[in-house]
């Protein structure tokens, strides 16, 4: 298939998708809209984790920390002064913060940049580590970030969190960010940088022997991943209107991990599908937690059951279906068309098979 055809198809899909979003935004009820928005944010977060964990093969579990940095930065930058005065009633606020009131777009970018900066600082010591050491060190740093947020009250309002953040994120913000991230990832993965990252994933020593600068490329991937996590966190803060330290525990990282593992470590389209699937399933499974009346028998809801199901799902997937939905493969236009062609051919064959006996009878 020609490159231009593919580009046109992609462009058409994006336009069609945003048209659908426009109508969804107009006619869907607010609850469903929030879920749709969350899907978009989770796409960004899933891709962010997939970049470092899936493509580069460096198992990082620090996403909640970077999200927290992004969310707090964006929240502090967008809150108008009077809201800030309302929030900091227990301790005085750090004065320079008082009059900051940026537009949302700049605040989100800044949230990403600050998270990327933290990623850079943390990456210097941590990226020398491998495998499970890296996992536990990044997990630890995420926890350190959380503990610092709880303790630096003039800057973050401590455990009380920030409330009444202007709610700006809607489906267009979330999915706009998601689509941009998808394009960024595709460009990155198909560039020479992407090849270097993949080579690090398959064998670090061989990659180094081929002249790939391990530390530089790992850092690149880690910083970019932190940036995206920061953006995701900022968007999430702008959607929920409140951020507090309990939001950014390991549970947050776990949810993103679930998305990435389900979709396939090392697949962009897999992460997108995983993000949408997990977000919707997460809401749909609320049924388990509320009582169900079947008419003749009433099943009591079990609060907390959702997370049991999700953790069980993660274990099942990793044991029985390790590569996830797409593994390392991608959903491409060629793939889709090939599939369509195959289906078509099968139908033709079946029609032929059917037509043969009837002609004999005739």
């Amino acid at each position, binding site marked *: 298939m020609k490159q231009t055809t593919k580009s046109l198809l992609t462009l058409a899909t994006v336009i069609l998708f945003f048209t659908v979003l426009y109508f969804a935004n107009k006619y869907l009820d607010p609850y469903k809209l929030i879920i749709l928005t969350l899907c978009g944010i989770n796409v960004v977060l899933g891709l962010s984790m997939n970049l470092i964990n899936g493509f580069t093969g460096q198992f990082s579990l620090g996403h909640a920390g970077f999200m927290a940095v992004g969310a707090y930065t964006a929240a502090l930058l967008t809150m108008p002064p009077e809201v800030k005065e309302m929030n900091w009633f227990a301790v005085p606020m750090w004065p320079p913060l008082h009059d900051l009131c940026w537009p949302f777009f700049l605040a989100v970018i800044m949230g990403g940049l600050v998270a990327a900066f933290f990623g850079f600082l943390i990456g210097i010591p941590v990226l020398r580590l491998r495998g499970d050491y890296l996992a536990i060190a990044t997990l630890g740093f995420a926890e350190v970030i959380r503990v610092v947020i709880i303790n630096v009250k003039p800057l973050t309002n401590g455990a009380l969190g920030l409330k009444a953040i202007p709610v700006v994120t809607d489906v267009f913000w979330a999915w706009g960010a998601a689509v941009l991230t998808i394009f960024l990832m595709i460009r990155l993965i198909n560039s020479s940088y992407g090849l270097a990252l993949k080579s690090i994933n398959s064998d670090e020593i061989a990659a180094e022997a081929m002249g790939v600068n391990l530390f530089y490329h790992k850092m690149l991937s880690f910083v970019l991943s932190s940036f995206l996590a920061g953006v995701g966190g900022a968007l999430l803060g702008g959607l929920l209107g409140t951020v507090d330290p309990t939001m950014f525990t390991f549970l947050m990282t776990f949810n993103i991990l679930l998305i990435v593992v389900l979709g396939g470590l090392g697949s962009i389209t897999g992460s997108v599908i995983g993000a949408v699937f997990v977000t919707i399933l997460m809401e749909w499974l609320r049924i388990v937690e509320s009582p169900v009346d079947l008419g003749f028998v009433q099943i009591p809801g079990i609060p907390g*059951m959702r997370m049991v199901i999700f953790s069980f799902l*993660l274990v099942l997937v990793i044991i029985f279906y390790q590569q996830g939905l797409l593994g390392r493969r991608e959903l491409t236009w060629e793939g889709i068309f090939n599939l369509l062609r195959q289906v078509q051919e099968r139908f033709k064959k079946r029609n032929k098979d059917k037509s043969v006996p009837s002609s004999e009878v005739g």
Partner: protein
Amino acid sequence: MTLTEFLQHMANGVSLGSLYALIAIGYTMVYGILRLINFAHGDIFMIAAYVAFFGIGIFSLPWWVSFILAVVITAFIGALIERAGYRPLRNSPRISVLISAIGISFLLENLGLVLFGGRPKAFYRPPVFAQVFLVKGVAVQVLTIYIPLVTIVLLACLLYLVHKTKTGMAMRACSRDFETARLMAINVDRIVSVTFVVGSALAAVGGIMWSLKFPQIHPLMGIFPGLKCFIAAVLGGIGNITGAVIGGFILGILEIMLVAFFPALSGYRDAFAFVILILILLFRPTGILGETMAEKV
């Protein structure tokens, strides 16, 4: 700070450290053999506390029966987790096993929340352990003495098991090389199971003594001790049992002393262990007693 206060803090540090040591042993043994951070270890610790709690509270067993039962049941659960969650992945990339461990850890925590409820429960403290006596003006809980004693006795038993018995020799062989161990007619799966049984039993003892010392139990109580004890194991040199104990003691004492000397930093207590982890991994990745291993290509 007066000497009395210092001694008091020291006693606290030692008893906290020995709890860390007990849990760290489980990490270090599993890591030594499977090269896996058993994320579920901290939750096994929590399960032991709950089993002991229900034994006393619901089945009104005498406390010591309940404690022994808790250790046995927890050891069994530990082996079960290995069988169901880790063994099918024996030949998979290590990251898959790690993800499985994270999943199982979450599963246990959330099952705990569903089955036991999210509200903290008060753990029964038998009167034997509740006594307090004074040594030269230092108020010492009997527990503060018992906990390190139990740890040292268990450590001695464990060292005997690992260094003097056939099972122990097989364990050491497995930690070197699975394939070669198999060629020596060692049943690797059985040895891994034994490792999990022993590690979980020690975590169970740790969990029960932890609940005696801090008599409030909660389904998520295992997360932080779990992470910190892994750090203790790394500090001592992962794969080395004596190292894990030393690491546990150092971490416990340092943590108490940090809060004692710099009360302003007490909010950062939980972050402290991770800072130690980073420092260790940067400057002496093999830990205090660990041996350097060349990387195989």
